[in-house]
């Protein structure tokens, strides 16, 4: 266990715990967009900033990828922290002014209108989809492309990705709901990935419950019998 202070409170946390977890545990409110406890931290959105005092040195850092350390003093509400979070939020807001999630978060931080010209993007480049696809699904069908202001998330060559199983984990973790996944009839579409998948119909109820490609992938991976996914989870005995 590691002893540290968060907003004046002395706490103990397990070694390896990230500050964001330790602080939220004791009731601190820390905004974040690119953090998900199921995924390795990334530190892209720069909203979960805190001020860490280590000995005489004080620095601003993201709390999602900064582990608890013995004797440090953390402030989650210092003037600097709040100001910097607000401006980073303003930058995200100006990038994605039409996202309801972002609008709501910005409003909570007191920003009604960004001071910058408005773009019309829907992706905040948090990388959750990329990480979920790589770390959880294990296929890396999408990744970041280009750098700097030209950075995007995309499939290879913006085409149908041969390894994508159509599971939709990307859409599930996306904080701005920008992947555009839709199940219509027997087809699942991904607007962002320029691709679609045929959905398998349940032998019993006829419901199109999952992409055929995904079911085959899972069946092989788990070494399940050939007819295992002929029925949907609801109709499975």
């Amino acid at each position, binding site marked *: 266990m590691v002893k540290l202070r968060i907003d004046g409170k002395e706490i103990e946390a397990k070694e390896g715990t990230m500050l964001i977890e330790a602080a939220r545990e004791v009731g601190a409110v820390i905004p974040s967009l690119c953090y998900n406890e199921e995924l390795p*931290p*990334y*530190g*892209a*959105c*720069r*909203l979960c*900033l805190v001020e860490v005092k280590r000995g005489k040195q004080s620095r*601003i*850092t*993201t709390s999602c*990828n*900064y*582990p608890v350390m013995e004797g440090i003093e953390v402030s989650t509400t210092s003037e*600097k922290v709040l*100001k*910097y979070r607000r*401006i*980073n939020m303003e*930058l*995200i807001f*100006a*990038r994605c002014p039409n996202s309801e999630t972002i609008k709501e978060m910005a409003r909570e931080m007191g920003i009604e209108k960004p*001071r*910058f*010209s408005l773009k019309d993007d829907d992706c*905040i*480049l948090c*990388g959750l989809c990329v990480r979920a696809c790589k770390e959880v699904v294990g296929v890396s069908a999408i*990744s*970041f492309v*280009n*750098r*700097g*202001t*030209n*950075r995007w998330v995309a499939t290879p060559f913006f085409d149908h990705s041969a390894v994508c199983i159509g599971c939709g984990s990307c859409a599930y973790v996306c904080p701005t709901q920008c992947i555009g996944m839709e199940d219509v009839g027997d087809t699942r579409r991904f607007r962002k990935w320029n691709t679609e998948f045929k959905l398998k119909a349940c032998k019993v109820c006829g419901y199109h419950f999952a992409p055929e490609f995904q079911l085959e992938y899972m069946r092989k991976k788990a070494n399940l019998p050939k007819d295992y996914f002929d029925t949907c989870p609801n109709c499975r005995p």
Partner: protein
Amino acid sequence: MSKLASTAELENLRRALLDKRDPGEPCITICSGTGCHAYGCEKVADAFRKEIIKKKLSRKVKLRTTGCHGFCERGPLVVIYPKKIFYQRVKIEDVSEIISETIIKENLVERLLYVDPNTKEKIIYEDDVPFYKKQQRLIFGNNGVIDPTCIEDYLMAGGYRALAKILNGISPETVIDTVKNANLRGRGGGGFPAGVKWESCRKAKGDVRYVICNADEGDPGAYMDRSLLEGNPHSVLEGMIIGAYAIGSNQGYVYVRNEYPLAVHNLTIAIKQAERYGLLGTNILGSDFAFKVKIGRGGGAFVCGESSALMASLEGSVGEPRAKHIHTVESGLWDKPTNLNNVETWANVPLIINKGAGWYNQIGTEGSKGTKIFSLVGKVNNTGLVEVPMGITLREVIYDIGGGIPGGRKFKAVQTGGPSGGCIPEQYLDLPVDFDRLSEVGSMMGSGGMIVMDERNCMVDVAKYFLNFLKDESCGKCTSCREGTERMHEILVDITEGRGKDLDIELLEELGEVVAETSLCALGGTAPNPVLSTIRYFREEYETHIKDKRCPAGVCKELTRYVVDRENCVGCGRCKVVCPSQAITGKKKKPHKINQKKCVKCGACFENCKFNAVKIA
């Protein structure tokens, strides 16, 4: 050539090589650095080769193509040994005359001599050229003496002597202590003490350790690491081998950008030669120590100069920096302890081992020891690479070595530290140049870029230029860096195109603080510097752009208007001749007029008027 089995064999080889060489023998050296290449030095070298054969002088005179000499402004450069006669701007047509006059008859070819623009005096010998006189070329000096593709040249210049010295019974700990005591600071930008880094890496847990040479030099206008690697690759390799010995590493990497083909080429040759002599590989010089070096070629992303992004790139991933609380000396390349230093830092190492920490400490200032190579470019008469002791003043570099500002114009600022450095104004011209003093005035040492600007440079435009570079070169991971630099650039574009608003300066300052404080790596951490430092020293210029919609330097086209001062205009018609858009009219000997609708704001009239009659309104 065969493997050298001991340090004694190395010394024997060196002696044998030196014995064969007649120091009095004439030798024509031709600078073959990138600058001179652009001037066509290769063809000049070919012409010399042919002429020597034609005149049957092959036994009497040597020809050597060397690395960059530094005085790029006057290339192609030819220096004739043993007297070191200095010829500049040498063309193919000059070759036969140089051979017949200077080599055969020992006469000078006067027109090829360098003329000091200040004293109008013709200078014969390289050492007397003012550009070289105030320099202290400890690292760079051998560039002009050795053929970088010939390890024997390096050996004759004392090469691998430092390596032999440590292998003769100096412990790794003592090597680290020597580097620590020498107070060698990293030349790549951060200025972190190299010895301390080495020690942490040696002490880090794990049995495999890596040593990396960062040759991903990407600053616009900076090319000292490139020139070192091109011109004297063995000095860098020797430094790395010594570092690896001290740290306990058996594998090294040189990460060099693929846009430096000559550096890659010469380094590849150097590695092979060193391997053949047993200076790299297993049982180096007969000892138990083994060390290999591989070249990793970078795709040219500026951010890959950042150590953790560089390591990611070497591993084959996207070059993106990672969280800073884990130090690369503990967990770097493939999560193994890794020590990274830049080209120039490594090249300092053999020197320190050979001459000792005490000697090294005599050069430089309190906090910064040794010399530093700067690439002096921009509005300065002598552009090129200069190596000077730390603590030299900016004035000495720009005026004594650089020969001042061309065209009698006024100095305005000098930008140091690459794109994320800062602009230093005239009031600090007497500032001693070292790591700490540059930081104090809002700039930084960086890797050693030095861009001189005069009154015809607009500081808002300069800030815009660098921000444009940085917003494209940010890896794009952090919101603050990616969006922040883009927004700062956007505001600067607005200001330079006449759409500047009240509070724009304050917004730039606010954004600058957030980008610097909340971005992950040093790219974002220093990206606002060009903006913040120009606001700090040239705030008025920003205000003139925003409030008066005027660019005093006449750079921002939307805010510039050239007018003819009727009092001064004598009607010579020179402006009319040079105007590319026929915007100027007027009768001979009568004041001329500029048609604003036709004017493209190129400034040709302004540059060419001899009577100071064209003014920036």
